[in-house]
């Protein structure tokens, strides 16, 4: 049986480098050329200095747990087969957040401040999505 496709928004030129980066196994973040403020999710204007000039930098992919939820009801049929799944709100080292699924661990292992790193999951030739795995608390992350 053919799997149901995930809900995807129409292409947005302001965010193209983000999606391109995921396909290459990198989490690309916007950095303001004028004032250096890092922002996410992708958008056209720096709210700090109102510069449109932006450069895209790869995240170090290290972060810490800010919050989480465990999804038990799919709401969209594409996620029925994944239930239950855990979504982690991650404070990235760069100072912005992502909301990504947790892999290889259960929610009972989570706590605020626990270390995670971002991994990449290829869905198709056109789409790669970010996820995260727990970094063992005694293990120094390689940054």
């Amino acid at each position, binding site marked *: 049986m053919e799997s149901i496709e995930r809900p995807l928004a129409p292409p947005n030129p302001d965010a193209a480098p983000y999606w391109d980066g995921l396909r290459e196994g990198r989490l690309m973040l916007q950095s303001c050329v004028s004032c250096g403020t890092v922002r996410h999710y992708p958008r056209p204007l720096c709210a700090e200095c109102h510069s449109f000039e932006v450069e895209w930098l790869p995240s170090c992919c290290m972060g810490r747990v800010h919050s989480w939820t465990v999804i038990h009801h799919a*709401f969209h049929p594409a996620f029925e087969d994944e239930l239950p799944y855990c979504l982690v709100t991650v404070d990235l080292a760069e100072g*912005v957040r992502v909301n990504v699924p947790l892999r290889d661990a259960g929610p009972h292992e989570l706590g605020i401040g626990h270390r995670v790193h971002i991994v990449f999951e290829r869905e198709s030739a056109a789409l790669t999505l970010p996820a995260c795995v727990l970094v063992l608390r005694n293990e120094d992350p390689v940054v």
Partner: protein
Amino acid sequence: MSLYARGAITGVGETEYSRASGRSVLRLTLEASLAAIADAGLAPGDIDGVIPYGNFQVVAEDLITNLGLSDLRFSAVTPLGGASCVAAVQCAAAAIAAGVCNHVLVPVARNGASGGRIGMRVNEMPQFRVVGEFEAPVGAAAPAQLYAPMARRHMELYGTTSRDFAEIAVTTRRHAILNGRAIMSTPLSVEDHQSSRLIADPFRLYDCSLESDGAAAIVVSSAERARDLRQPRVVVLGVGEGHPESPSAITQRRDLTRLGTAVAARCAFGMAGVTPEDIDVAEIYDCFTYIVLCQLEDLGFCEKGEGGAFVRDGALGLGGRLPTNTHGGLLSQAHMVGMNHVVELVRQLRGEAGAAQVVGAELGLVTGYGDMGDGTVAIFGRA
């Protein structure tokens, strides 16, 4: 110029609430509108302003055409999701105070159960665009999924528990049964709540609001003209609208436990010249139990982090410190985007709330909460 005591709610109307109305959204809108206009003692032709619900299913043109509004001077929308209805009160009061119009009709109708379900609106509303683009692909799109991390963070930081959420669900259900015009009509126990299935942890089934069919409407008039109308005057003493930091993506908000409500509350309380201690009855937007708890803190009824302790001792019940959602709310009466909250507060202040009447209620508060944290607050007084 302040909006203090410039507007009054002169008419309220509702259809029955159900899971299958069998009528169109426009028809429901018109039924509730006629009821609210008649309640005010007005004729449809007296309406010279309209604020239809901002999802554009029903527009001003529909109201002109069907109600025969021959002299409509003002139309607007306030598309703030669940904060829309109280935002519309502010918008109407501003238009009235500026002399643009005299009687503003604000109707809300939906077939939220029998028509398109509310849960997956992400691709229909521009306010959800960022979430639709970056979070829906990983499985975070419905409100329950997006708000759950706010509740979890609150629990981890402050020791709030699912049992605290149960307190809100159970009290609200008790009120719905007293109201009698509610979809949910059987008692709910703490055990029922605690054993209900998980939707998006920490939210269980009974932490989530209903998806329902029906309509509710109000008429906002100038406080001066309200003196000559049919009902006891319910005057808008304070009103405010507040937007949170990072309004398009909760994930990026520096403090997940704060909503735009705090900003709106400062404005509304300041305008009315009253404090939370003065409020006799509150109708607090309850799309989820946790959102009530969080707003109680943002409104100043208790400190941030103390919402769990505040609700724990029966404070929200009749006879409690702050009788709240005396009609059964979105959790147990119906999801009318909070217009049913406005209607209930007016009934409380008129002394028409039946078995759920708060004795001697003179000053009340109503809130709205919009999709990613927009907050609206209004304070009404009997005058």
